[in-house]
């Protein structure tokens, strides 16, 4: 059961990822990413991280992707030209991707972390619950928590500035 779910979610994640990379129209790319994010949420649940899964769906798939949709709707789905100005890029990029994947896999599979080969230790019932995460956020990771809030503030201000009124002569 768990394995079937894992493979389904994995296929969904992979499909979504490939869709993002391959789709010409950015709108369809956004939709692919949403599929991917939902699959990841399922994978998080399989890893007994309920809160992270919920946050993934609500924040990521919910807020961030909506933002993407708005911008793509505003900007339009322009297709890219076929000609590649950088010589060798179309050849090297997939090669490097493959190389990256192989290296990382070797690093994982051949590592001396024996615990990777297991399902993980038995965990108690409240593992990954909001309560547990909340405790950690307010006790052990208070400073990163607050810092992240400040970062969000800065980002909001930045967004307003960037997309604000155009000054004289900037409309080209």
């Amino acid at each position, binding site marked *: 059961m768990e394995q079937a779910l894992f493979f389904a979610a994995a296929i969904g994640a992979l499909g979504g990822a490939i869709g993002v990379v391959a789709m010409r129209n950015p709108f369809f790319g956004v939709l692919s990413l949403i599929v991917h994010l939902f699959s990841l949420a399922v994978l998080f649940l399989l890893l007994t991280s309920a809160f992270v899964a919920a946050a993934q769906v609500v924040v990521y798939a919910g807020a961030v992707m909506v933002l993407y949709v708005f911008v793509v709707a505003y900007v339009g789905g322009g297709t890219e030209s076929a000609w590649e100005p950088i010589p060798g890029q179309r050849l090297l990029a997939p090669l490097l991707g493959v190389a990256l994947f192989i290296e990382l896999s070797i690093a*994982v599979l051949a590592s001396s*972390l024996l615990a*990777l080969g297991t399902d993980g230790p038995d965990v108690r019932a409240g593992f990954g619950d909001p309560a547990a995460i909340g405790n950690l*956020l307010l006790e052990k990771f208070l400073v990163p928590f607050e810092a992240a809030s400040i970062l969000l503030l800065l980002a909001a201000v930045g967004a307003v500035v960037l997309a604000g009124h155009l000054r004289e002569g900037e409309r080209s």
Partner: protein
Amino acid sequence: MNIEWYVVLSSLLFAIGATGILIRRSPVVILLCLELMLNAGNLALVAFSRMVGNQDGQVFAIVVMVVAACEVVVGLGLIVAIFRRRLPLDVDELRELRG
């Protein structure tokens, strides 16, 4: 499932995201591929958290999500600004910083 499966899946998603950044020319799509890479990182974090047995990795993943959100906000703001100034939305066309 062994934790290995999750981590290998995470590295595959990471590689796909990296390839996407190198291949695509629209800034929007590049940001989407960036999201892919971040989420791959998140998956690895949560997997390791499960392996270790405490929830520090999950908290880390939440903070990563926050950072990703901020970055998306700023990146899309840039794209909107470019669009409003009627510059071509093509990463190869925007290359005045060169030697």
